[in-house]
């Protein structure tokens, strides 16, 4: 390690120090959240700042590989990479994490003395998620995945006295372990096929492909498929999505937004890293699979969302559909990374904002959020009602909202690069047509939510006013949803540089 080489791991270090500081403050100064809350907020903000610094460093001095272990038998094997992808991901994760943390503030109040634990779990999970996109080493990616997943298993079951919460945690744990195991198996098979665990650097997987003609790719293909399964599970792409509705519904509402948003960001970034950059030479092999996953996700997510009566489940299925739209962008290979970033970074805020509103409506520690809870929300609390309307419109992909730009960007990207299967010059046109149709069908349930919010309220009690942090989180999400719908260009220009090396 050279002096001054802290920047590439600054994001993780800040969050780790933050997590420990929160626990330490809680022990020393007392469990009142006013003591350790600011420390946690600072850690999230500091992480975002670290991302900004990385971004500046990358744009001035270029990307680089770091923490190369010397003298290890498989030669030089870098452990950390700092490039456009990881730096942009750090910014987005930091900001979404910060807003998600604010949205969870009421939940933190409700869990009382266990608050510091919840918050430090969130901090640790964020560090793990960023590790997934900031390393060229497949094993470290797996470690990051597990760090985040285990934290999330605990967060999902944080209200252990509630049946729903415990159930969701256990389901998440079992299925998540299965997916992790499959991912790890994929890593092992890839290692077996290429003799390397690292994507870049000396003796890397990319090296292997540039110097070797693979004549018998069976093991490699199986490895790729299994790694893809692991990632598809994390981003809740169909048919690996079933955990999502159950877990979203059971987990405490205040924290679902954080979990759902950040894991998607990291999952897609890891996809871009492993497949977009690492397996770039195999692009013609894996994009058809991604296209199939995208198609299945769009259809399954949209159609099943139509028949839900619980808003959390509805948003979970909508998340499945959105995973499909994002995967559509990735069918262009590494060229799809900008569209993926635009989509996932705006969508993450919508998710956080949407669940934050639900947590003010049904309580941050609630499990179920029946659609009726939203009845007449616009009248009961105009602020929350309108902001939720913006967020939902953003998800539905209405023009002048970020979701629309994201979808268009994604669709355009998918048709920009010639597709290998079925081979043609217009890319995955069939997928885009399907995506447009599903977007229209999806309007039905988004408008069902909006319609419910605008209906006349029953004699429901006045909505309890949410805490300032939660309101702030909702407002930020809505503002981002609207702002990048009207003025998308700055973000589009930024994501054009957010490439993996």
């Amino acid at each position, binding site marked *: 390690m050279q002096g001054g080489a802290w920047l590439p791991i600054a994001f993780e270090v800040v969050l780790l120090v933050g997590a420990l500081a929160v626990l330490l403050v809680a022990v020393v100064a007392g469990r009142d959240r006013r003591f350790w809350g600011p420390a946690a907020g600072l850690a999230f903000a500091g992480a975002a700042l670290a991302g900004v610094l990385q971004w500046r460093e990358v744009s001035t001095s270029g990307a680089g590989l770091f923490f190369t272990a010397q003298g290890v038998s498989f030669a030089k094997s870098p452990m950390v990479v700092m490039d456009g992808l990881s730096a942009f991901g750090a910014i987005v994760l930091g900001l979404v994490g910060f807003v998600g943390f604010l949205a969870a503030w009421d939940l933190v109040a409700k869990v009382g003395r266990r608050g510091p634990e919840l918050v430090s779990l969130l901090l640790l999970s964020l560090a793990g998620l960023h590790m997934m996109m900031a390393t060229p080493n497949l094993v470290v990616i797996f470690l990051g995945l597990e760090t985040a997943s285990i934290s999330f298993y605990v967060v999902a079951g944080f209200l252990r006295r509630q049946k729903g919460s415990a159930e969701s945690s256990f389901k998440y744990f079992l299925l998540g372990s299965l997916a992790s195991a499959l991912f790890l198996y994929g890593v092992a098979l890839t290692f077996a096929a290429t003799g390397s665990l690292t994507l870049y650097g000396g003796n890397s997987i990319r090296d292997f492909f540039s110097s070797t003609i693979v004549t018998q790719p069976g093991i*490699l293909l199986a490895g790729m498929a*299994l790694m893809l*399964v692991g990632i598809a599970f994390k981003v809740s792409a169909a048919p*690996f999505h*079933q955990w999502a509705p159950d877990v979203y519904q059971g987990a405490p509402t205040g924290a679902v937004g954080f979990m759902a948003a950040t894991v998607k960001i990291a999952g897609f970034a890891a996809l871009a890293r492993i497949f977009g950059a690492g397996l770039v030479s195999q692009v013609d092999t894996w994009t058809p699979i991604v296209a199939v996953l995208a198609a299945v996700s769009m259809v399954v997510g949209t159609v*099943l969302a139509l028949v839900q009566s619980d808003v959390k489940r509805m948003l979970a299925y909508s998340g499945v559909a959105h995973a499909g739209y994002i995967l559509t962008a990735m069918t262009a290979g590494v060229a799809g990374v900008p569209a993926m970033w635009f989509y996932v970074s705006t969508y993450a805020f919508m998710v956080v904002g949407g669940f934050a509103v639900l947590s003010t409506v049904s309580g941050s520690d609630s499990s179920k959020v029946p659609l009726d809870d939203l009845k007449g929300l616009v009248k009961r609390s105009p602020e929350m009602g309108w902001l939720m309307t913006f967020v939902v419109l953003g998800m539905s992909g209405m023009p002048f909202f970020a979701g629309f730009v994201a979808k268009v960007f994604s669709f355009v990207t998918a048709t920009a690069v010639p597709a290998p299967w079925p081979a043609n010059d217009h890319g995955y046109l069939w997928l885009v047509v399907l995506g447009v149709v599903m977007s229209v069908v999806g309007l039905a349930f988004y408008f069902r939510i909006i319609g419910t919010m605008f209906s006349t309220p029953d004699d429901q009690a006045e909505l309890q006013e949410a805490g300032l942090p939660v309101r702030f989180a909702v407002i930020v999400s809505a503002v981002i949803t609207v702002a990048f719908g009207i003025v998308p260009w700055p973000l589009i220009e930024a994501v054009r540089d957010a490439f993996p090396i």
Partner: protein
Amino acid sequence: MTDFLWLLVALPLAGAALNLILGKRIGEPRSGWFGFGLIAISFVIGFGASLGFFAGTSNPQTIYLFSWIPAVGADAAILWDPLSALLTMIVTGVGALIHLYSIGYMHGDDRYPRFFAFLNLFIASMMILVLASNFAVMFVGWELVGLSSYLLISFWFTKPEAAAAGKKAFVVNRIGDWGFLVALMLIFMTFGTFDFRTIFENAPAMFGVGAGTITAITLLLFVGAAGKSAQIPLYVWLPDAMEGPTPVSALIHAATMVTAGVFMMARSAVLFELAPVSAGVVAVVGTLTALLAAVIAVAQTDIKRVLAYSTISQLGYMVLGIGVGAYAAGVFHLTTHAMFKALLFLGAGSVIHALANQQDMRKMGALRKAMPITFITMAAAWLAISGMFPFSGFWSKDEVLAAAFARGGAWLILYVIGLGVALITAFYMTRLFAMTFLGSSRWDEGVTPHESPRTMTVPLVVLGLGTVFLGLFNTPARHAFEHFLEPAFSGVEQVEGLSIGLISTLAVVAVIVAIVGIIIGLRRYNTEVLPDETGAFWRRALAAFGVDDLYGRFLVAPGKAVADWWASVVDPKVVDGAVHGIAKGAIGGGERARAVQSGQVRWYAAVVAIGAVALVVFLLVLGGGF
């Protein structure tokens, strides 16, 4: 200083956001002071950045902020030239005073912080409109101005009249916006960009004078301007908009928003130069609007409605100025009018406040003693709008009329009508002034008028000083104002000045006209008993000649019928039928698919495993693994 210009938009926007979110915590007087402070800072920034233009040392420049839709030449950039600098100073300067005034005026309102949030939002929208460097961003500001004025007019939305007035303003403005929007499309089709500089530099080379495309564009732009600047036939929303709080009337309907149309046309001066037909239409419509509104104003009894119609009338003068090609004169009148009309509205507000929300002039009178500051400042504004030498209104109105006179020929008719309007203006303003401050007191019982608090009188005094002295910046002997604006109208031929002798003659004529109007007014209304005003003319003029009724019968009613038909027949049967058909199919599929989601972990794990196997097999087949 120009580095900070983006703050002109950012500060009011931040103020709006903070007042909206934290308003309740900031509390009553503080949220007002907060809003005022931000606008005042904006004014200082705008003023500082304009110093270069005063000194004649800086040139117009475009300050790039970030790209928005670069493909159509629509970047978020600031075009900083004397015209936008001037409008910036008016909007933030008058705006700051009106914020200050509202701190006292809105005292005790339930939604006090929200009011300031809306005011700040309005200033921000106006700044976007004014500072835009291209038509697209200007349109964004244009629409935001419409939105925030809607919010402000119907601020007391529990009052049905206020809600209706807000709706009316919105709908009528939409008609104008439609024109603007079509004009924008035409502009983009013609020039391939929205950028002001590119368009204005290329237009004279691409088209000769009188080209059809440019005529169409300018006429459509005028439709847009007629909506915002309340010209015939779209002026009907403005009198109703007086249902809003009085500071809103002053800010929106006198000083800033209504001038947006005039500003937009002045900005597009190059295009209007190329379209003499459009310019003629603009001038005629402006003159007729000035005349019609002045006649209606004569018979109004509600003090704010008099001022509303007088605003329309004065806007007519500005539009006339644009039409005759005297852009600087039009903008100059815009500037002085912003001062004295804001003052009139705020003074009227002060009176209304003192008489416990009495707006009927027949129940006022003899307020001179009770409200000395309001009286003196209002007197200045009254003389200014009447065109009395040497108040500001005299100089600017005279400039416009002189320009019409200088064109000669048929334009002389417009000059004569304009002079006639000046007479009527002097008359009805004297009527307003005398009925309010002079004569005998006709107050309701139990009302004891009192002077308003300091936060309300300070703006009055500041505006009063502006009203008296602003005109001296641009006398026929010293065209400081026109020189100031010159860089903004480079490439536009200004009307040639007349000889000093002729100008002096015109000025004397104008002053005589004003004095005649004032004397008639004073003789008629400075009396113990008000004259009887129930004759046929008075009734018809009071009802604004039934234009609203006409619109209602021939435009609104058929429109509503079509909408009803659509809502009751087309929508449920045709549209819903199609939508429901698709939805039923999808939901049917969903119900069936739902069975898969049983909640059993075993089953989920099995599905994951099956999916994984399928993926592996698929990849092997595709990748030639077998």
